[in-house]
């Protein structure tokens, strides 16, 4: 029996602090994500959010739904960019249910509806008795 999905995870408006906290936690210190002059020199108005932060949010939402210990595969593809000020919504649905596993599709979108990340994940299910 697959649990009902939780409410979508809504994060935002994203702040520079959110980006810096993720960078410190992950160890990815690329300056384009926190250094304003560097970001401008790279052609952005603001520091760019991190694809792996968006992946992490999808991980949080899906683990809350199906259990962190049950994940067996988690593949994310990065699409549109996000910036401080954007509000991200993470949700997903079942693609295929098998006897011992379920495949789900996850998406992280901005308030404008732009998809910043899509993920495909497989979670183990308890053996039916």
């Amino acid at each position, binding site marked *: 029996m697959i649990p009902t999905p939780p409410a979508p995870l809504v994060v935002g408006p994203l702040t520079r602090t959110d980006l810096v906290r993720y960078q410190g*936690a*992950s*160890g990815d210190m690329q300056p384009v994500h926190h250094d304003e002059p560097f970001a401008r020199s790279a052609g952005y108005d603001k520091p760019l959010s991190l694809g*792996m932060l968006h992946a992490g949010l999808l991980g*949080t939402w899906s683990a809350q739904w199906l259990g*962190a*210990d049950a994940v067996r595969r988690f*593949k*994310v593809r990065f699409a549109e960019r996000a910036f401080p000020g954007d509000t991200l919504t993470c949700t997903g649905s079942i693609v295929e249910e098998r006897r011992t596993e379920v495949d789900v599709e996850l998406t992280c979108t901005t308030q404008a509806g732009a998809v910043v990340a899509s993920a495909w994940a497989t979670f183990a299910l308890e053996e039916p008795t």
Partner: protein
Amino acid sequence: MVDRSALGATGAPFVLDVENGKLREFAAATFGTVSADGTAPPTFLTTAFHWQHADSDPWEQVRMDPARGLHAEQEFVFHGAPPKAGDRLIGTSRIADIYDKQRRSGGTLTFVVMVTEFRDESGRLVAESTLTGVETE
């Protein structure tokens, strides 16, 4: 410009200790909480950044242009339950593939795939992390 001679390059093994404090910090940064049994969140192995340096990181040999390079995809595969607090993993990264794709709009995209295998101290394969980067022409 991607250096194609990096294909097959393999880094020295590195240790990744799954630490309680790091799990809490990562969970907070991704707007979650650590599960009661200390299981790492699905994308936690990206914290290999903290453990992997020069000789263990063959990505540096790819020499992708940071102005034209992007992280396109990331995949984690777990052979059984994901790691938990207290686990010690040994990671080894290799440049597994370098290939081109023609854009419909013209121009070439160069994809580079790095696979990192994580084993426990007994040598059992616990997880694989696959990073796909792309450089535009």
